[in-house]
């Protein structure tokens, strides 16, 4: 466990923490900059930024659409890192992306084309260059939805070397043995997946959340709950159930996609969510499942 972790500190110090997700480049990198700064002002304690990948198998329709918009706007890893460099926010930043994006960055892998000499040596896929560049831009951590603990060793090693956190997801289906395996590699916080399925705003807090939090109690790492959190009231319930933070994504992207005044609305939403979380922390009696 990386005890110097900037992320862990941010959660503990701002307990209960609000963690927000936006897809970088949706609808443009300039706008993402303004949105992220608004969330920061509104009370976000940690900010996840999605680097869009063409096959977002873990996302529901809302984030899929955001990713498509970001790709159509020409969001590349390099521009993503430039955005991160540019951002002026207090909250630590994490990148959320799929493993292939991490592997290919700087690998020199090029599809065959008329210009490429087929015999020219290529580096194999390697997470190193990505992590190096992420550290350079000041990113504090990485979340990879399609990288289970079993396949994480190379990325874990690269993150350790550069002092980045690697956040793992704990699912409702994760059993005891797997939990140990995951927690032995996790850093920053445990991303507690509130329910089976994909990302997306939903109207209630599932019983799976309570179960997961209970199972995680013995591990000394902050627990943040995501997947389906959309309102201050959810945030309250989740924190009341024992979480150290709530993660909100799709509900924010709905604002990006639909609002006429997204900057103001994002700031307000962050404020509402943070308020809800805080109400949960101050509740007289933490509910037991």
């Amino acid at each position, binding site marked *: 466990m990386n005890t110097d972790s900037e992320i862990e500190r941010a959660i503990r110090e701002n307990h209960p923490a609000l963690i927000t997700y936006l897809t970088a480049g949706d609808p443009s990198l300039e706008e993402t900059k303004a949105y992220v700064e608004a969330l920061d002002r509104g009370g976000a304690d940690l900010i996840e930024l999605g680097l869009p990948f063409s096959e977002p198998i873990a996302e529901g329709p809302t984030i899929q659409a955001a990713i498509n918009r970001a790709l159509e706007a020409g969001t590349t890893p390099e521009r993503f890192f430039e955005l991160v460099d540019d951002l002026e926010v207090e909250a630590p930043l994490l990148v959320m992306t799929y*493993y292939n994006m991490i592997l290919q960055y700087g690998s020199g892998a090029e*599809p065959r084309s008329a210009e490429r000499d087929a015999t020219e040596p290529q580096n194999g896929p390697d997470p190193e260059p990505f992590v190096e560049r992420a550290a350079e831009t000041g990113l504090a951590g990485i979340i990879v939805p399609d990288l289970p603990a079993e396949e994480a060793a190379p990325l874990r090693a690269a993150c350790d070397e550069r002092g980045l956190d690697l956040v793992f997801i704990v699912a409702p*289906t994760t059993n005891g043995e797997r939990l140990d395996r995951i927690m032995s590699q996790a850093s920053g916080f445990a991303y507690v997946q509130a329910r089976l399925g994909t990302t997306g705003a939903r109207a209630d807090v599932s019983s799976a959340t309570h179960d997961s939090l209970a199972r995680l109690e013995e591990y000394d790492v902050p627990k943040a709950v995501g997947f389906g959190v959309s309102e201050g009231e959810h945030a309250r319930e989740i924190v009341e159930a024992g979480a150290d933070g709530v993660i909100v994504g799709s509900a924010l992207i709905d604002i990006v996609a639909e609002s006429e005044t997204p900057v103001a609305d994002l700031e307000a939403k962050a404020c509402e969510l943070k308020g809800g979380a805080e109400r949960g922390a101050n509740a007289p009696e933490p509910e037991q499942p």
Partner: protein
Amino acid sequence: MSESTFGSYGGQYVPEALMPALEELEDAYERYVLENEDGFVDEFRERMRDFGGRPTPLQRADRLSERYDSEIYLKREDLVHGGAHKLNNALGQVLLAKYMGKERIIAETGAGQHGTATAMAAAHLDMPCEIYMGRTDVNRQRPNVYRMRMNGAEVNPVEAGRGTLKEAINETMRDWATTVETTHYVIGSVVGPHPFPTMVRDFQSVIGEEAREQIRGQAGRLPDSVVACAGGGSNTMGAFHAFVDDEDVSLYAVEAGGSSLEIDEREGVAPNSATLSTGTDGVLHGAMTKLLQSGDGQIVESHSVSAGLDYAGVGPELSHLVETGRVTPVNVDDEAALNAFHRLSRLEGIIPALESAHALGHVEEAHEDLGDLVVVNVSGRGDKDLETVLEETEKRDLGAAPDVEVFDS
């Protein structure tokens, strides 16, 4: 535990939520498939015989043999129930799901071949079944949609992206991530996370096992080459597996050369599906393998006149066998495949799937390198491709094509 990788390929790159299901599947695979627990393998073989029509013949192609002045044998997977090798795998997996106590089957499909095979298997074994299919594919593959519906499967059109196979796979993964406790996802080729590539290969390897025994009986020896088309690579690994240890047998995986081998990075489109020949290593749909991707790691849209080969990835075991030199990757372009389609139809009275036509196209192009005794896997029949072939033939001036001007004006 079974090996989860083939050299540096394979693995399990999936959301955590699915990992317990993969462990459960791996366990079931080992017990039922590898160890024949509860007689699983016996039941599978019996059903493939009575329901599926196995064994399929290995047929000497008299006129091709004459044309190429060598002995050409066709492995007739087009005669499997449903019209392609796909049932070998679909029935195996649906039966396994039943043994595992799963209550529901989901699957993705592109052109519809795997979807129809899965729907058939699910109907046969009385399992509720839902098939995800891209909107574009739903609209252009109506007969296969009808077939799935007739077999009682739900067909869920996927509106995302270009509405083809890649999107359908993504969406099926999402369903699975939600329903994994009661549902088995029947992946349609030797792709996806471990144990799928190994398990699908094992269900398909009956192709090569039969062919190996048949060619020894009919020609008195092992072949010089085995040729099979490769999309995901399930008919390919199915045909090759029994021969991998026979070092004197050359193995050719024939990919879709499409209209060109160049990728258009700006558009994110590869006008081919020649993953093994031109792809680079990366992670897609749960496995490390060769991919058609941009330098940044975005998966590009592949293309082939044959829908079943039209996929930007390929099975990790094939990537490994190509990397080690055991399998030779080659490719055949749209036009050569169309000509091969017409050639087999006219010369042998067998209308092959456009996928299989790629394998036959390679024999036309390279027969001098294939030795005197060649086994070609005819992975499926071409009834499903008639409209496409007519359309594509009209656009070109194909040597081997008949005209079909008999309709009313």
